[in-house]
């Protein structure tokens, strides 16, 4: 399988299984993700997408199965340790720190996940540049509790970016947004991908997945049913069945 010129995968998930009591949410999932790749993750509701993300970010323990990140086995690590190694995520339902301003939300990430020792001033600069890039520059001193839905999604991504990730996992960052807002967030993700950040995008909006992804993986009932280029996956009969239920 591996040819000598293929780069080592950034993320290698091997034989990952996750059970909740008698229910198997993920069954023997294995996949490699290359550095710099734009990877789409699709599947019907309840197919295990978010569970897979929770296993990668360390929220859930896997049993059995391993997660290798940059060649290191991160399976025994807690979420904050994985974040510091460069795995960052947003949440399907935004989880801002509500008692803080937007700027302070980002400062949490910069305080705790920044790899190098940088001065407070440098952190402020880095915070402002991320906010500006995300189109939230004018909202820095606004309370996170007062943001609109699309602003919350952007802040989730901004906070994830502030941890200086190598791998960014976006969990339905576009759900519930209008089509112009979807384009806005999609452009943001594409611009991040252009800066050597590997991105896994979970999304139900097919148009966005097709435009964004280099490769797409489709889960159904905890199993991989298709993996390939977006057009290949969309043409797959099993994917169509899973979505249309024929």
């Amino acid at each position, binding site marked *: 399988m591996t040819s000598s010129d293929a780069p080592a995968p950034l993320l290698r998930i091997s034989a990952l299984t996750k059970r909740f009591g008698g229910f198997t949410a993920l069954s023997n999932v294995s996949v490699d993700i290359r550095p710099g790749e734009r990877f789409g993750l699709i599947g019907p509701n309840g197919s295990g997408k978010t569970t897979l993300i929770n296993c990668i970010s360390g929220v859930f323990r896997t049993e059995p199965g391993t997660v290798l990140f940059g060649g290191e086995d991160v399976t025994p690590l807690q979420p904050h340790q994985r*974040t510091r190694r460069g795995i960052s995520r947003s949440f399907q339902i935004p989880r801002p720190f509500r008692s803080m301003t937007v700027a302070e939300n980002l400062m*949490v990430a910069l305080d705790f*996940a920044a790899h190098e020792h940088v001065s407070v001033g440098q952190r402020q600069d880095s915070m402002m540049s991320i906010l500006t890039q995300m189109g939230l520059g004018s909202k820095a001193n606004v309370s996170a509790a007062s943001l609109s839905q699309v602003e919350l999604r952007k802040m989730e991504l901004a906070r994830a970016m502030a941890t200086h990730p190598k791998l960014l996992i976006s969990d339905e960052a576009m759900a519930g947004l209008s089509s112009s807002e979807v384009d806005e967030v999609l452009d943001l993700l594409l611009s991040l991908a252009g800066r050597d950040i590997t991105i896994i995008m979970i999304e139900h909006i097919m148009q966005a997945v097709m435009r964004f992804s280099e490769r797409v993986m489709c889960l159904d009932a905890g199993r991989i049913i298709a993996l390939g280029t977006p057009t290949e996956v969309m043409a797959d009969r099993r994917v169509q069945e899973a979505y249309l239920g024929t």
Partner: protein
Amino acid sequence: MTRNSMAFWTGAAVFLAAVFVMTQVVGNQYPFFAGYVILQFIALAVAWSILGGYAGYVNFGTSAFYGVGVYSSVFLVKAFGAPLPLQILAAAAIGALMGLALGVLTLRMQGIFFSIATIALTIIIETAITNWRYVGGAAGIQIQRPPVTAPFENYVQMLFFVQALLVVLAVAISRYIQNSWIGRGLQALRDDELAAECTGVPTLRLRLLACVISGALLCAVGAPAAMYLQYADPGSAFNLNYSVTTLAMSLIGGTAHWSGPIIGAILLGTTQQLLTVTISSEVNVLVLGLMLVLFVVGAPQGIIGLVGRLRGKKEGGA
């Protein structure tokens, strides 16, 4: 040192100097008896809010820590005749261990379940002390004060000064935490523990740290009380009133800023002392309850929150 820090430490020095001068000038003993209680509650409220306010883990076990502080002094005095500074240090060490134990035992508990566990802790420890003969058991124990050391003329005056030192220590620690990365991390885990963890905050370690610091301070504040009363019994040392009063003071003052619990404790503590003298000690419990209800309804963020809101309105901002 920033201008803010300079102002803070100047204030602390002036406060300690004023307390010291008061012990040298005022002859009447009553102000020291009453003042000691108020200072004690300031220190308790400030220590409580490190875990209960910053981290959002509402601890109903203040009386457990306070009582253990009292009884660690009782034990040390009876067994070794230990001096006051040693009693306080030992109580702080025991409180730190107790905080750690509480944190580890409640690893998977959040919200109301954590609070219930802290009440259980109080009952367990009180029962253990009640059945420990060596420190007096249920009947309590009398303690002899050692002779007072210069420059103080009276033991209660000295305790008053010592409690003022503990207040400054507690406030300095609380203020440091709030302004440092620890405070930001605690605030993040209070808002959303999972999001904090996924943003790189070691939530478990910070939570344990808050338990340890808060526990050490709560116990240390209780330590001089044995000498203050010259008597200790489980029923009063572990009285649930300490938990409720401390919590009420912190919440009424506001937990978003280190000064909140101080304001709350001064306000409630003074009111209680006045009511105890003028009407009765039963009425102050009623007043406490009424004030807590008023604040929960009218100003859930406490006085600090109220001031912030008014200031925000004045500036015309959000």
